[in-house]
């Protein structure tokens, strides 16, 4: 069992967390075309290596940014979204 750092609760068991999405996809402004909207909705692209993601700590209900290596599972950062 890996421990994930919640910015609010500290180190907790990975089973308490839920992956939401790859971070950094900006919501298109104005009236985006279908291609831009689809890219925003679905463009995960599964980065290999260092990646920043949005996770939910289901225990406290807070979303936060998690920086980790998707190959080695090493976690390098955890930051509140608000």
């Amino acid at each position, binding site marked *: 069992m890996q421990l994930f750092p919640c910015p609010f609760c500290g180190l907790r068991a990975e089973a308490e967390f839920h992956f939401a999405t790859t971070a950094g996809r900006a919501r298109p402004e104005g009236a985006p075309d279908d291609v831009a909207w689809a890219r925003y909705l679905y463009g995960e692209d599964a980065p*290999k290596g260092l990646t920043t993601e949005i996770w939910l700590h289901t225990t406290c209900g807070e979303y936060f940014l998690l920086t980790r290596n998707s190959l080695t*599972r090493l976690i390098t950062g955890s930051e509140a979204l608000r």
Partner: protein
Amino acid sequence: MKRHSAFTLAQQALRGHKDWPQTWAKGTLKPKYDAVVIGGGGHGLATAYYLAKTHGITRVAVLEKGWIGGGNTGRNTTVIRSNYFYPESVALYDLALRLYEGLSRELNYNIMLSQRGMLIAAHTPAQMEICARIANAMQINGVDGRLMDAQEATRRVPLANQSADARYRLTGGIWQDRAGVARHDAVAWGYARAASALGVDIIENCEVIDIIVEAGCVTGVETTHGRVKTSALGLATAGATTGLTAPHGISLPIQTYALQAFVSEPVKPVLDTVLLYLGTGTYLSQSDKGELVIGGGLDRVPTHGKTGNLPMQEQIISGLLEMFPAFGQLKLLRQWAGVVDVVPDSSPILGPAGPKGLFLNCGWGTGGFKAIPAGGTLLAHMLATGGHHDISRPFDLTRFITGRLIDEAAGSGIAH
């Protein structure tokens, strides 16, 4: 290619199995091909075979970064089935099943297909309703599937926990008679042997570093063995797909996860079907050697690593023991994971993407093995003709733009 027969098998046995011919030829990379397929798993090798066999295109290379069949083809639980909900999915997976049914003969190579039937087991009235809905959909789509009642299900799976305090007592489920298992290595080796005999170059330990694009068209690939020219490029690289497409600005709705599987020590015959339990998400079958082959859902943490993590192991094994308390004394022999490419609607992506000449065969998620003959047929069709096959068209990448998703995860209410 020397053909195998009962006579040649007996001959080899008498000679002490000392002079079997090499199954397929190690290819050497040429500077130019009519078509290049990246990925020497089942899908890639099948693509090369059908390019040569069906379309007469034999100047084909399969580039594999490791050894053939060493990725997800060698890391799955070998289940073959077509018990899907939507007509598009049934057309796709039943094409694969029909081709699998004739594959040993077609390839002259025993893939050990064992159509022992599959039960998707339910344990609540609500699940039985979902099962009835899927069984109806399968029949409307022309595939053998039917609702099985509790009595017959219990007879099929006599060791399932039916005690008064069982949490998941069988109430029946969906039965598909033609479902079963096959020997995964034999599928890869059989396609490799047949493709190699038709002149396809299979190159192992050859990693593709980049796709070369000029003026909006694919012109080749850069590999660890040097540059290769081609104008028709097929990707059959499962979890590694986004690493090749992202640098070219092709956005894919893919997230990769590890999918784990386990085998127990071998025991006498205890289970003669493939069984998936809706209640626990755990599924299993028994191999010809007697090992129980056990699988479950995806790991919950996206990863490109092939190790698998402990919480999902615990969930799968606890599910197994809830269903079969008698297996509590069994030892696990091996555990492994494959890196699978998961898309939001749990259906594959088949079709062109980005530069002209590039075609994708990816997004199979947890269910690629069962689809190998269809994935190969359809990717070969696209590489040879430059356009879609009727069966692949609904699975085009543009469905994420138009919104015409084929949501099998929602449609069937089961994990894929």
